[in-house]
């Protein structure tokens, strides 16, 4: 009860002091505002980036495994050169894998090349041409929007058919259905039998809708004779991914005739790798970013401390009088702490307001996400800044000898 | 041509709704080399007049001509230059820089007039010696007595060899013997041709001057030569 009265008394005095030196209070608050704005803006941007990444990476699927010669993330030139000298992964190996795996729902060999796709006088350049089998549709997140997917027979027989992505469909066929039309895919003419559902882009880099899927045999006849395959495997359930991975590894080693003790001459990739990679990169960026922006808040805090010291020195007589009429150390300490905290909290609130306005503008160019958590944290941080930077000056005031304080001119 | 000519000078201060007339209608002519005492009760406007004469303040109305030039037409830099070179101020309340020692306080006007460091020091030392403080040059104001502080202030006023010396109660804080010494100093300066104004409450002090101007409520009450026989 007593403490509450003291605090409300302290708040009153703090408010008077702030109003008495308007310019000074304004500048001090401005320092904190700048700090809070940069820190929260940074946090907001990191938050938004995180969200965007996780959304984007989910396209890969948490239950997917990807076998290829090279790992997605190669650490050195040497490792890269080494993996480039490995034997190719062939279609036969993919077939064999399909037969051997028990924990896989679908196994699709994939190989790609960029080509120009033409229909009458419309054309689309650098479209990704994917050679695959009927399993492809089961391993990708996309459904069929129109028509049907390639059948097992067509894949095996290398029929001149294709299934096109949404972007290709809209680019080539503005007003008519693509089904049954014959399009020129690089050097060859193929019949469109289906259109894939929209998938969006991966990490904002490559559109997944700008592709044409063709039977794998057709690909090997028409584009690349002995390509290096990537094999996509969908596990029967996401929680059995690890088992599936072990089985896959064993099967691949057997298929590629590796002796026990030989290192793997292939790599198994999965979504996790992206997430781990991203987390380490994003973690570093977040740490550096928050550190650098935190420095401006730190500078703001120093400004508060400095001004509070001045304030204490100027009010030495006032402190003396208060002490003489019975103010305790705690009362004085609280009075100055409250003053510093009020300024900081005020700065925090104004800063949050400015950040909010800025994020509205930033939303257009980058993913930002101003969560309640960030806002709460920002207010807490500004309060803490006030308390920490106000403590030393308040302590100096509280410890003053009343007799000497009163003698002060 | 007189050195100083004041014509219908007014100076008023506005404090909220109230207007205080510190000087109402003052006209004066002072020749080069005169020694003038200004007397009057407290609050009558003596310091205000001194501030005007010293180009520290500008009149609310009226014309102040110094050496034939209208002071109101001068810009801030010219005023500063006049204060620096032509006017030596001895304030009622000393007004020394508290953190600087006597030597630096006296050097200050020379710094603003661009005297070389060596010459500056020598001139400051001479001025301090001439007021009898040659042995106190490294003392700070709070390490000196009131009379010593006053003498530092006088040394500072003299150091740049100004032609006009304005002393606002130079002996107010001093015992009579020290006061006499300071008055003697001013007399010597007057004999060298300086124009001197002294504000004082004491008839004793005023008798050193050759002309006494009495002020009451912002008006000149009387202006006459010092009665002979002092």
């Amino acid at each position: 009860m007593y403490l509450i009265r003291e605090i409300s008394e302290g708040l009153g005095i703090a408010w008077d002091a702030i109003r008495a030196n308007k310019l000074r209070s304004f500048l001090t608050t401005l320092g904190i505002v700048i700090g809070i704005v940069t820190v929260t803006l940074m946090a907001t941007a990191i938050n938004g980036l995180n969200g965007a990444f996780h959304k984007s990476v989910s396209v890969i699927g948490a239950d997917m495994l990807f076998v290829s010669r090279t790992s997605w993330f190669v650490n050195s030139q040497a490792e890269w050169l080494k993996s480039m000298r490995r034997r190719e992964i062939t279609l036969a190996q993919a077939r064999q894998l399909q037969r051997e795996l028990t924990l896989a729902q679908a196994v699709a060999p994939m190989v790609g090349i960029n080509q120009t796709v033409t229909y009458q006088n419309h054309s689309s350049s650098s479209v990704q041409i994917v050679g695959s089998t009927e399993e492809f549709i089961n391993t990708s997140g996309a459904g069929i929007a129109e028509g049907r997917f390639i059948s097992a027979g067509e894949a095996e027989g290398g029929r001149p058919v294709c299934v096109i992505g949404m972007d290709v469909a809209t680019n080539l066929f503005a007003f008519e259905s693509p089904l049954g039309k014959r399009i020129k895919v690089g050097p060859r003419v193929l019949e469109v039998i289906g259109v894939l559902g929209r998938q969006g882009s991966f990490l904002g880099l490559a559109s997944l809708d700008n592709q044409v899927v063709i039977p794998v045999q057709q690909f090997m006849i028409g584009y690349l004779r002995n390509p290096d395959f990537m094999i996509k495997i969908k596990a029967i359930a996401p929680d059995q991914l690890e088992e599936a991975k072990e089985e896959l590894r064993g099967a691949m080693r057997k298929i590629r005739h590796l002796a026990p003790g030989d290192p793997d001459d292939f790599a198994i990739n999965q979504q996790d790798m992206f997430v781990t990679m991203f987390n380490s990169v994003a973690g570093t960026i977040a740490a550096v970013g928050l550190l650098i922006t935190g420095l401006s808040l730190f500078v703001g805090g120093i400004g508060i401390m400095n001004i509070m010291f001045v304030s204490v020195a100027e009010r030495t007589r006032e402190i003396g009088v208060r002490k003489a009429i019975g103010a305790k150390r705690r009362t004085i300490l609280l009075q100055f702490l409250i003053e510093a905290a009020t300024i900081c909290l005020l700065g925090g609130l104004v800063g949050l307001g400015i950040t909010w306005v800025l994020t509205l503008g930033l939303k257009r160019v980058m993913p930002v996400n101003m969560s309640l958590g960030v806002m709460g944290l920002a207010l807490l941080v500004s309060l803490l800044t006030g308390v920490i930077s106000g403590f030393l000056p308040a302590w100096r005031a509280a410890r003053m000898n009343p007799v000497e304080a009163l003698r002060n001119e | 041509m007189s050195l100083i000519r004041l014509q219908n000078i007014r100076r008023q201060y506005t404090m909220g709704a109230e207007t205080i007339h510190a000087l109402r209608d003052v006209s004066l002519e002072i020749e080069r080399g005169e020694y003038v005492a200004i007397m009057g009760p407290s609050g009558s406007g003596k310091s205000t007049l001194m501030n005007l004469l010293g180009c520290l303040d500008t009149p609310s109305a009226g014309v102040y001509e110094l050496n034939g030039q209208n002071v109101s037409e001068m810009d801030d830099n010219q005023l500063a230059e006049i204060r620096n070179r032509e006017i030596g101020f001895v304030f009622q309340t000393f007004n020394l820089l508290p953190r600087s020692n006597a030597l630096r306080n006296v050097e200050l006007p020379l710094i603003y007039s661009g005297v070389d460091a060596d010459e500056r020091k020598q001139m400051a030392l001479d001025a301090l010696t001439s007021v009898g403080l040659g042995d106190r040059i490294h003392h700070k104001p709070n390490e000196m007595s009131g009379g010593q502080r006053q003498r530092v202030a006088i040394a500072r006023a003299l150091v740049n060899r100004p032609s006009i010396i304005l002393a606002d109660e130079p002996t107010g804080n001093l015992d009579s013997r020290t006061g006499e010494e300071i008055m003697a100093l001013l007399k010597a300066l007057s004999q060298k041709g300086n124009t001197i104004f002294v504000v004082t409450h004491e008839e004793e002090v005023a008798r050193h001057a050759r002309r006494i101007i009495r002020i009451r409520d912002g008006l000149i009450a009387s202006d006459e030569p010092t009665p002979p026989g002092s």
Partner: protein
Amino acid sequence: MSEPADKPFAVGRGSSRARSWRVFQAELAESFFMAFGALVAHKLRSALTLLGVLVGVFSIIVVMTAMRAMQHQIESDLSSLSSQTFMVQKWPAVHFGGPGGEEKYRRRKDLTLPQGLAVMRKATLAQAVGVEAQFPGGEMISQYGKAPPNMTLQGETPGSFAAQNWVLQDGRILQDVEVEGAHDVCVLAAGLRKELFPFGSPVGEKVKFNGITFTVVGVLEPKGAMEGGNQDNFAIIPITTALNRYGNLQQNITIAVLAPSRDQYEETVDQVRGILRTLRKVEPGADDDFEIFSGESILSQINAFTWAVRIGITAISSIALLAAGIGIMNIMLVSVTERTREIGIRRAIGAKKRNIMAQFIMEAVMLCELGGLLGVVVGIIAGNLAAHAMHLSAVIPFDWVFLGLFICSLVGVVFGTYPAYKAANLDPIESLRYE
């Protein structure tokens, strides 16, 4: 004291140029001492104020030091390429894209030895053409020692020596017949010589790499500044030998071309590009299906990429300086209020407005410069500690040091001006009456 009456009156008196310069000097010196005195008089306050600037400058300098150290490393790695040499390969030298972007390069046909040899024959403008394939890792031993495991075996042609700017210390370079006949000979880089033949000349001696014996025919000079790096840990053998024994004849290689002069550089590049496009049947109008780059082009790519990072970091760090500047302004305003009486005295004694202004701006700049200097020192130390942790050699980014200090002065001037203006425009009489 002289006769004052004889002295000309100050009003209307012209001042000579020499005198005004002296006045200016004296005023400046006075301002400096006053500012310094004020800083010393309020030690805690000054310390806290300059700490703000310190932090702001620190954050710029620490990042720039670390980045400069990285850049130096890259530059010295690339410095082995002369400015007239360019490389051709399937993969780009630097590639800042997501993993998705790699697909484009992966799908390209390999650049093969026959193509390299064709360039060698047909590139009439080139002064030298080298074909290279690298085989990292492996064990090389001699009678006397063992090479470090991070060594690289490089298959090369005689032209590589000129193109790569390799200088012989001892023996001779590879010869055409050795490439044609795939002989088992090798030239050692200086780093390997130290390990394998610490005593005498290795020329004519034998070394064994992964079970195959090579005769040493030459040794290279050590590469300039970067001692101790793994730059000098390689052995050169004929490219045919390398592909036969450790790879296959269709595998991907790199071509290094030396243009005869800077003037003919572009022409040479164009000729090589044309030869390869024909060989690799690139349709007219289509993009190259190989990469041509030089040390310079890599550097400029890296610089272009890091430029954005540098600008971003400078901007963010400058925000801390902004906060520091506001702190300075605030404290200077306090200082002006506290010293009102002093200002009044100075004005009464003849200080001009600009004297007062100079004094306070000087004070602000001094605070900033002091903070800035400390920030630079701490920043360089911390940045180099970070560089040390990344195994980079120490650097001092002088340009950023000067820029940082310049920005500091700017902050001082910008944020000191308002308080100084306020001080200069105080009414002298009011200031003298101020309690």
